[in-house]
């Protein structure tokens, strides 16, 4: 059993130190030197044996799989070196939910003296023709660093897989590298459910000890999130905040907006954001004409994954019936930030306190509006709650 401190040490090296092949590349000589100046690990042992060995094994494995592609498989999938691109096969590459793949290295893998090694990710959805990106959840392999929100799958042959259901981002198809394993659909479902409701834990996964704010795991999450931000390609991405648990998130919000409160104890993460009631002075004076229904959405402005400011934004909603239920068009005439990069979320809250999650939320930048679809029969089913997120500019 490793201690969390030791686990953190190897995790940082894995995520931020260059592999051995990079160390000898003339192209990155300057970057490598800069890295060694600030990295306590590479500084101590510039030719660190263990990590070099691991890196070498990875290179070997890749060559091996390339040479004997037909001999290794997981389920019915070949574990070959798959960047099965359009050019190679003549057809759209096939990527299935549940696949665990390594991302490809970025063209420039350096940032501020650190090398960003591509993480393994789990593919969560099949790519649809209309979308450019596919959602993936980042993965690590040391359960000592796992906390609530991570889905830990123990396997005696492959070791542990820890899927960060709180750390989902979007990449292009071509950024996916070779496949490592294929996991079942029920695991993908569990990841998606856990992402929506951080308090949920499927019965096949172990419960994990809550994270302490100043401990190694809190710092590890910060690193993991930075890694995800580095590899994320869809910049309109729903923000993934660096929060530890609901209690600290609520404390954080109370700190940023004194007087913020909830009518009843918030049920899930989204309820915290969308259901928060801000103190009176956050709401502008009532508009002179009240011809249409309006309400206030909560706008969260964040910086480096942390909430910086909370504001109330006037919103006008219009309900229309659709094939599967209803949809709200939410207009935000007075949004104080540019529409680029805004992410919106809405749910319905019933009188009973129950929450109905949306089946789809979309930001329509050109119409300066947001649309939220629900699978309910009636526009009067519940009260619409909205949260908006935007990065500080």
């Amino acid at each position, binding site marked *: *059993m*490793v*201690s*969390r*401190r*030791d686990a*953190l*040490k190897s995790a*940082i090296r894995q995520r931020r130190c260059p592999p051995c092949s990079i160390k000898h590349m003339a192209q990155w000589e300057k970057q490598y030197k800069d890295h060694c*100046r*600030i*990295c*306590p690990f590479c*500084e*101590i042992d510039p030719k660190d044996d263990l990590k070099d060995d691991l890196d070498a094994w990875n290179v070997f494995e890749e060559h091996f799989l390339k040479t004997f592609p037909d001999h290794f498989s997981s389920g019915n999938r070949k574990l070959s070196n798959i960047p099965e691109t359009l050019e190679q096969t003549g057809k759209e590459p096939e990527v299935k939910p549940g696949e665990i793949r390594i991302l490809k290295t970025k063209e420039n893998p350096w940032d501020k003296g650190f090398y960003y090694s591509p993480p393994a990710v789990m593919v969560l959805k099949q790519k649809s023709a209309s979308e450019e990106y596919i959602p993936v959840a980042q993965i690590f392999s040391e*359960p*000592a660093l*796992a906390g609530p929100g991570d889905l*830990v799958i*123990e396997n*005696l042959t492959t070791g542990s897989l820890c899927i960060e259901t709180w750390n989902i981002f979007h990449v292009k198809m071509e950024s996916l590298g070779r496949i490592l394993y294929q996991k079942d659909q029920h695991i993908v479902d569990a990841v998606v459910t856990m992402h929506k409701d951080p308090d949920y*834990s499927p*019965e*096949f*996964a*172990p*419960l*994990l*000890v*809550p994270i302490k704010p*100043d401990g*190694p795991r809190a*710092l590890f999450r910060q690193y993991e999130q930075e890694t995800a931000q580095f590899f994320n390609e869809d910049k309109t991405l729903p923000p993934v905040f660096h929060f530890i648990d609901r209690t600290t998130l609520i404390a954080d919000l109370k700190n940023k907006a004194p007087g913020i409160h909830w009518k009843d104890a918030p049920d899930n993460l989204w309820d915290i954001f969308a259901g928060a009631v801000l103190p009176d002075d956050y709401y502008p004076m009532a508009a002179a004409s009240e011809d249409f229904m309006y309400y206030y959405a909560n706008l969260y402005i964040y910086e480096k994954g942390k909430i910086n400011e909370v504001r109330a934004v006037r919103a006008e909603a219009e309900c229309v019936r659709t094939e599967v239920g209803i949809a709200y068009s939410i207009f935000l005439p007075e949004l104080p930030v540019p529409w680029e990069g805004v992410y919106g979320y809405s749910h319905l809250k019933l009188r009973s306190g129950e929450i109905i999650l949306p089946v789809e939320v979309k930001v329509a930048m050109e119409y300066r509006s947001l649309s939220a679809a629900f699978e309910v029969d009636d526009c009067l089913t519940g009260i619409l709650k909205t949260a908006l997120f935007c990065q500080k500019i």
Partner: protein
Amino acid sequence: MTPEHIAVQKWLKEKDTIPFLQKIADRSLREIQSKGLAPMLFFDCHTNDKKDRVDELLSRLFIFISDTNRVHQLICRKGQFMVPELRRAFINSIIDEARTKDPYKKLYRNAQAAIRESTLFSSPSSTAKADPTKADPTKAISPKIFCFWKKHAVSPGSVFLTDDDLKEIPFPDTICPGADYALVNQRKFLIPLAEYFISQVEAIFNGCSPVIPLKMFIDWIGKYTPVAFYCEPYDGEQNGRCPGDETEAVSCASAFSNRLNDMDCQIFFFYHCQGLSHDEVKKQMKRKSFATYQKEQIKKKLSEFLMPFSWEHNSDASLLFLEKLCQILSQKIRNFTLKAV
């Protein structure tokens, strides 16, 4: 006393016998090591030195020969297979001895029997028989691992605890008068201890009832009293001081100093190396404010930087780190004041 016994006793005293037995001991050690049995068989020593181990094996071999009737005949026959047979019998005997002596296994077996028989807990075999339709709470754990949970617990679930978490559960002196192997290995203490341990774990998970792998419980006891002997250096976890601490601390100082910009260097140096007051720092840096915000930011940076190092709480290494860091910073500050002039 059989004639063979007398003959063997006499043989053991002959001057050629010891070198002969030494060879057998030497060969046995090689066999033990090639089979990876060393950590299991050498739990009494704290050295990996080959000579010490051969000596230990030799004395054990001596006792084995003089005490075991069936090898007396073997030795008296002096057949051509005498040496390999003697060696095999000897190695088997010390493996047997280790099995019954290994304190970890003894405690494990004792606890397993106690928990199985106790009415306070459920374990997989008993529920499977009682109600095969019931969901198996050990689903997330390998079926070969013995687990237990509170009887009548509502949907118990598996939990994951690391060493760090186990260390945080204190040993209850009120339940067991002392963390002592001889005490904890008694049923009258084992059961209350297991009960206490479950309730402590339950508290960590806000009242969700846990399924405890027995190994986890024994490992927790092992935090307070030695239950296993390790001779082979155990990779990974190294508590307290490691030999590399000091060198690591010095190299870290240089890496951290390179992460600070010029102003940060000054702020850190004046506050933490020279121990100046707010007013003095303000004066030194010719600033209007105390730079308390920056001071806090640097402090945070430093604690994050040091987080992965196990010597963070080792005062000697930490002092050395600070000393070295101050030395580097003072040099840096001198350099850029020279440049400014």
